[in-house]
């Protein structure tokens, strides 16, 4: 019907026939509109890709997470631990091939800094004057925020092992003891691995009484590094009874490895053993922990530094294991802190 009408109308017919010039092949006639359509699709495709990329880019997420964390810190009260879902942030960081230090604090300026792989990241200030520690737990897709008082009243509760200890305070705590000789090394490696130096000192006192020759066959040196668990990693030889043991007799190496272990456990176990990735992914470990929590329920309550200390001594509870290790280190830590205030 339509074609009949078109061809009967002279004007319309001549216009229509202009589109099919004599002697042109069908493919020639189809080429321009086809190209036009393809180019348009390509153009709008590129635009769409740009919009999607821009909306899922690192910068947007960096800003969102920095502000979210800063607001949570402002709202938090002392002795609080806040877990923030970080799944999308981790995904964005992975796309940008960034695996660690996704979130940090500038404590001088009270800034939360999030870097998911953009050029430098995004920073946002918080006004709260509590002692705050923030770190990412990439394995569990979480941001962990710990809030505590700057001057803590005691050490019986988790979160008391404040990472910010001044050099002066540390010197006061170690002064006069037989551990004083290791003061510089503890200070150096505590700083390097972002661990509280007084905590390292307390662990050292508990483990070896600051005797560098302490060796029970399985654990060696000042920090009593376990040969079975750590030889072959952290710059140590895999020859457990030979080279590794010798390496660990050196005070410098021993303290460095001890601080590194504390730092690595802080990333894994601060959330508490049952929330840790090791517990979730390792069946053998899970069975041991479940068994111990059944016998010693306080194992299940440890979070933050108490969980780190428990991990340092091992999560087991068999014969020969000190199930009150955390509490004993706590006491040592408390007396060291007391030393600081007495000298002051």
């Amino acid at each position, binding site marked *: 019907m339509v074609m009949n009408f078109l061809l009967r109308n002279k004007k319309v017919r001549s216009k229509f026939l202009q*589109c099919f010039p004599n002697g042109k092949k069908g493919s020639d006639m189809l080429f321009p509109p086809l190209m036009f359509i393809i180019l348009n699709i390509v*153009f709008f495709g590129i635009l769409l890709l740009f*919009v999607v990329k821009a909306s899922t880019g690192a910068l947007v997420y960096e800003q*969102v997470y920095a502000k979210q964390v800063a*607001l949570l810190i402002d709202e938090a009260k002392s002795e609080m631990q806040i877990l923030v879902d970080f799944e999308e942030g981790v995904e964005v960081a992975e796309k940008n091939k960034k695996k660690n230090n996704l979130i940090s604090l500038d404590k001088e300026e009270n800034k939360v800094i999030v870097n998911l792989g953009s050029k430098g990241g995004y*920073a946002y200030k918080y006004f709260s*004057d509590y002692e705050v520690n923030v770190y990412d737990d990439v394995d569990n897709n979480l941001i962990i925020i710990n809030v505590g008082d700057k001057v803590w009243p005691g050490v019986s509760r988790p979160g008391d092992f404040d990472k910010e200890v001044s050099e002066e305070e540390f010197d006061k705590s170690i002064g006069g003891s037989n551990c004083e000789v290791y003061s510089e090394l503890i200070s150096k490696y505590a700083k390097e691995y972002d661990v509280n130096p007084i905590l390292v000192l307390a662990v050292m006192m508990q483990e070896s009484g600051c005797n560098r020759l302490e060796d029970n066959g399985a654990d060696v040196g000042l920090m009593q590094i376990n040969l079975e668990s750590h030889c072959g990693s952290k710059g140590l030889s895999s020859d457990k009874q030979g080279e590794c043991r010798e390496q660990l007799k050196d005070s410098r190496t021993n303290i460095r490895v001890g601080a590194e272990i504390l730092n690595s456990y802080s990333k894994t176990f601060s959330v508490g053993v049952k929330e840790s990735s090791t517990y979730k992914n390792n069946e053998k470990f899970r069975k041991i922990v479940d068994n111990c929590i059944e016998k010693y329920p306080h194992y299940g309550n440890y979070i933050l530094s108490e969980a780190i200390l428990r991990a340092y001594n091992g999560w087991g509870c068999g014969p020969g294991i000190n199930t009150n290790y955390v509490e004993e280190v706590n006491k040592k830590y408390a007396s060291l802190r007391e030393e600081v205030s007495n000298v002051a």
Partner: protein
Amino acid sequence: MLLKNKIGGEKLFSIWWLFIITIVGTGMVWGVSMFYSAEIDVRNVEAEILMDRISDCLFEQGMLINNLLENDFDIFQECKLNKKVIESDFYFNVSILDESGNVIKEIEEGVLTNTCNSKDTEGCVSKERGIIYELKNEIKKGRLEILTASNQVGEEIFLLK
């Protein structure tokens, strides 16, 4: 131009088509870039949190804390606020008035910018409530007025590589 079908080609691939496509492309890229690089504004939420923080720490069991009216009262220490950050990016004004509306004590800290020249504008929050306080061993009634504001703008960090 390279196409054999001149008539169709000229109609479809004209200079106007290029012009329109350039305008559309540039507009979209500009708009999207502007939208996603814009600041997500949380100043109002911040001001509210600051307000809650201050009004929470000034009271104990429903009464105004005793040392608030003393000269050496340090609101930063009492409310756990970082002085440096408050002075650079925030503002608050706490006024305690007696029953007849006379100001007994006023604490003002930070900088009030143009974004907050009237109450309840963007980034500003105000609150008023009746209070009971103790003055010279006498329990009195009064009013507390708090105005808080956030002027904070976040910052993108650029590292030189």
